[in-house]
């Protein structure tokens, strides 16, 4: 399950590019500066990830399934408070979570859709792989419920990204979780290796210095 430093670095850089593109899209929509960055990537078992995300509090999430040379489920997660903040910043009103209407949920779904499409899109572009995707779906519940909703928990690994979302001098931390089964994870690692090799390869073929 472990990745080498350089593989981790590569993944982080790829997701940062994806996050950057998503931020640019979001900022055009709200006419505010939006900063999105991915400070860390971790690999965990499902149960560990659920615990890290907090087992007692409720979280809201936008989930999409991607299918290609490997399958993964991508989930953008905000805690209850963070959800309210994001909705308030993007729509401009402070609305209690239980009052979050369908149409505001739709806004959250759109934000998730933009971020997830962007992350996987960048992965796809840089790995030269093609994915199809399901429509985004909204989930609300405990971390176990949200993570477990779409898959067989036992053989799944979680790639957990911390995402810092900054808008209007507010900083919110959300998370993007990628759920992969073990064989998908192996294939992802292969692609990362390939990507790193290509990056190093041009260097090693260059003139000596």
């Amino acid at each position, binding site marked *: 399950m472990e990745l080498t430093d350089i593989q981790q670095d590569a993944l982080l850089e790829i997701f940062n590019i994806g996050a950057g593109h998503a931020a640019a*899209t979001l900022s055009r*929509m709200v006419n505010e500066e939006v900063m999105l960055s991915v400070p860390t990537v971790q690999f965990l078992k499902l149960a560990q990830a659920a615990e890290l995300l907090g087992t007692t509090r409720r979280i809201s999430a936008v989930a999409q399934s991607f299918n290609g040379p490997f399958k993964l489920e991508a989930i953008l997660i905000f805690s209850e408070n963070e959800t309210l903040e994001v909705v308030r910043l*993007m729509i401009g009103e402070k609305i209690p979570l239980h*009052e979050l209407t369908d*149409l505001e949920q739709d806004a959250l779904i*759109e934000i998730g859709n933009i971020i997830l499409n962007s992350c996987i*899109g960048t992965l796809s572009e840089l790995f030269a792989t093609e994915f*199809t995707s399901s429509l985004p779906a909204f989930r609300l519940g405990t971390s176990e419920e949200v993570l477990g909703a779409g898959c067989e928990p036992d053989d799944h690994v979680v790639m957990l990204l911390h995402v810092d979302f900054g808008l209007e001098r507010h900083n919110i931390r959300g998370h993007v979780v990628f759920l992969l089964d073990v064989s998908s994870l192996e294939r992802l690692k292969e692609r990362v290796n390939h990507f790193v090799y290509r990056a190093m390869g041009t260097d090693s073929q260059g003139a000596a210095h």
Partner: protein
Amino acid sequence: MNESADPIATRLTLLTALADAVRCGLIVLDGEKRIILWNSWMVHTSSIPKDSAVGKPLERLFPDLTGRVRSAIDSALESGYPSVLSQSLNKSPFPLYAKKGANDAGYRIKQAIEVVPMDSDELPRHCLIQIADVTAAVAREDLLRIQAVELRQHTYLDGLTGIANRRRLDEYLESELRRSKRSGFPLSLIMIDIDHFKTYNDTYGHQAGDRCMVQVASTFSSVLHRPADLVARYGGEEFAIVLPDTDIHGAMTIAETMRKAVAALGIENARAKTTGIVTVSLGVATAEGWAREPADLIAAADGALYTAKHEGRNRICVHDPAHACGIVSPTHSLEPPTQ
């Protein structure tokens, strides 16, 4: 009898009829973003007939399409990813209108949009744009939101008089006292009680009593002009006036003005001794360092109110921390001491 028509043509006719029967907009674009399918819903809302749409690039029909819509289409066609465009973040991207005669004809309908890739084995990738009219849903949600806000307001308002209630007063006094301590500006409180109110109710009935209360409350409100000043019903026939950034002399002046204004109403209270009309007694206190909590300030104003009652009603009394409470009857001067 005719041989049944070519089954493929039949299926196509059926599918076209299906697209036209569906109650949302359906647009199918080919790889070059030209319109392949344009259903009846689109015709009705955009006023663009089928033969003006089919075969044309979407861009040409809608040159002002937002960047978000364009990139969603690109994303579907190039990467094969679906996009949702919520109405809250994308206000009516397409120029579509409600039927003529509807209440809001002339306004763009509110749209919830999905842009999804259409992949099949035989054909190159196409793109489906699905548009739902969510105008009614938005209107319902706006109404609910307004009602929720009103409901919240009612928890702060007294049902009878329409002024602030006790809960609001307690919260306001607490926050203003804190602010007063931070800023150093004085906070004044006036506690007011309607004289011989039980007698009034006994004489004229409770409905008249209610009406009287409403009049008195509105008289207090009319004396105040600053938005930060608060009139609240403390309970029963007692009222409280919160005056931020007001010193003892300012508060005394306002209290006396209120006393005179209520007397000027001339509401008959036949069995009220001395005056024969509805009057009020007022206790004034100003927090200037000695009040640590709202309860301290209330106790001081209440104490002054009690003294005013005790000394004959229809007067103001002021809490003075340095001396015993000073009594000011209606005839005494209220000029602040010359500096």
